[in-house]
């Protein structure tokens, strides 16, 4: 087990190294850099000024040198300076992380706490009206894009309450804080909730047909015990896989949701930085997201072994 974990950690480093090269190259394949954008906006081009600025930002160096200086800095905890704000990239990124983390955490909490119980209900009452209703609702969850849902939620808030939740870094009341974070979290988590529900349902349906479920009933176990203690614990593995993948997808959904709800989180910041070709911000943010995804994957694999005694990671 220990050897397995060490090997996994080493593999994670290799993965992150690969991602760093891909993101670095892709960014530079995108036409134009921040200097082009600035000078285009100004309307005239003085080649010497432009060359000076490029030199100042280090954009004139060969690409491998640029990469090495980024990675070298990263290893020392130096993320470079934002081209746009000229502040250290770390200072720009760090305060935005908790905002997005809260949103993503709430969205995941929402999708699992809604999706799993509803999936169980739907499977247990297969073919009932409840089942059909839940399946239609979940289908809508899978087909509604989150920006559209976000807009609908905002419009509904305006027409029902006369105003909509607007981001405020220091919410006065508990309710305001809830409105600021929970509403966008639900808008972005609806899709994952729907997917989680569907996977839970199909996985449960398969497990409920197994012999050991009949054994549990023959023992006199209650419906709740049969459905949750016996069936769900066996049915949860595919659900965890999907939640792990969804956690990564969530970042994409958050970009849109943070923009629609005007929340100054990491995801919206990434898009802004990309628009300015703010290389240090984009590179480091993508690396941060990559670390989150890789760690999530690792956690999912470890959870497998914790939940199912038949899964043991050998050497």
């Amino acid at each position, binding site marked *: 087990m220990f050897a397995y974990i060490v090997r996994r950690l080493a593999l994670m480093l290799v993965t992150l190294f690969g991602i760093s090269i891909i993101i670095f190259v892709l960014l530079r394949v995108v036409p134009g850099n921040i200097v082009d954008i600035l000078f285009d906006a100004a309307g005239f081009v003085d080649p010497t000024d432009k060359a000076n600025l490029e030199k100042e930002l280090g954009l004139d160096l060969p690409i491998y040198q640029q990469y090495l200086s980024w990675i070298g800095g990263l290893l020392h905890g130096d993320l470079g300076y934002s081209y746009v704000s000229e502040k250290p990239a770390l200072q720009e990124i760090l305060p935005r992380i908790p905002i997005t983390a809260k949103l993503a955490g709430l969205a995941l909490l929402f999708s699992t706490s809604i999706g799993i119980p509803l999936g169980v209900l739907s499977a247990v009452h297969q073919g009932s009206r409840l089942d059909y209703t839940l399946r239609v609702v979940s289908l809508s969850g899978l087909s509604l894009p989150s920006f559209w849902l976000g807009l609908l939620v905002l419009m509904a808030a305006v027409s029902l309450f006369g105003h909509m939740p607007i981001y405020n870094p220091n919410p006065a009341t508990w309710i305001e804080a809830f409105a600021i974070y929970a509403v966008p979290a639900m808008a972005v988590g609806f899709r994952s909730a729907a997917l989680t529900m569907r996977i839970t349902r199909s996985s449960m349906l398969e497990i409920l047909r*197994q*012999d*050991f479920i*009949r*054994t*549990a*009933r*023959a*023992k*006199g*176990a*209650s*419906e709740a015990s049969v459905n949750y203690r*016996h069936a769900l*614990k*066996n049915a949860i593995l595919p659900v965890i896989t999907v939640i792990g993948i969804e956690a990564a997808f969530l970042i994409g959904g958050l970009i849109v949701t943070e923009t629609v709800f005007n929340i100054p989180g990491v995801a919206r910041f990434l898009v802004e930085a990309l628009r300015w070709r703010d290389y240090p911000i984009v590179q480091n943010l993508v690396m941060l997201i990559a670390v989150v995804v890789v760690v999530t994957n690792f956690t999912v694999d470890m959870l497998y072994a914790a*939940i*199912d*005694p*038949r899964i043991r990671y050998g050497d």
Partner: protein
Amino acid sequence: MTEAKAADTVLDVKNLQTVFFTNSGLFRAVDDVSFSVRRGETLAIVGESGCGKSVTALSVMRLVPDPPGRVVGGSVTLEGKDLLSLDEAEMRNICGNRISMIFQEPMTSLNPVMRIGDQITEVLRLHQEMTAKEAWAKAVEMLRLVRIPEPQRRAHEYPHQLSGGMRQRAMIAMALACRPALLIADEPTTALDVTIQAQILALIVDLQKTLGTGLILITHDLGVVAQTAQRVIVMYAGKKVEEATVEDLFENPKHPYTRGLMASMPAVISFGAKTDARLNEIPGMVPSLTNLPPGCAFAPRCSLAMDRCRAEYPPLQETGADHFAACWRVAEMGAAP
């Protein structure tokens, strides 16, 4: 039935009817079946696959999957209580407690993500006032009772760490943990190696004697019946076609189907005997339950069938002391052929 017998009766099933509603129509998986089991007695239910043996057992436990199945008639009385009229919660108090069941597939009948000890503990804590610690100790004791070596260690293991025979022993431990009045064993040895089969069977019978449990043994193996049972029911196409004590049945089978079953039993050929003897078979196939003939369901395969057999279903007639058979030609059936 005399009064002394009635007091001793653990389970009394009368005119049980279980039907399945399927796309290809309604079929009667169990049709008008009656039997009773006394304390400490072993009743064997014998028949081919699909004859309704297992559904009979599941109907008694109220475990028939609904939909598509449903018990539509008859009564099931366990220790004076009509099980079919109980509500779900009352029935849960009985299942695993007064009546329990061992299934055919030990490989899949245990929860793969729960420790063996926890699975036995669960049934104890559901039905008896016990702390977690007491229940665990009792679970280990049950594992020792079913002769699992190193029960303390095994209790901590998961089903996949046990062999098929061990798992079936664990199932037996679970089924008997609350000292039920009735144990139903649905082909408990079919999925096991031949060498293990005899051990498991001996264990069940041994524990049944020690604990005084009534036992319903469902099997298609007449050899098992001869070794273990006191009384036998033969089922065919959802109906009871013959009932007798085990000696009587083997000495003097009355129903042509029972005779066919016995003739198709391979016997160990003794030294010097004719070795080219061909095993008898019952010609034809079990009829589809959705499309039963109007008369006796066995008539199409029966060499003795007459016109009446094909037109009318024969009633169950008493042909001797405690011996019943449903055949129009039962009177002509003398001693074994």
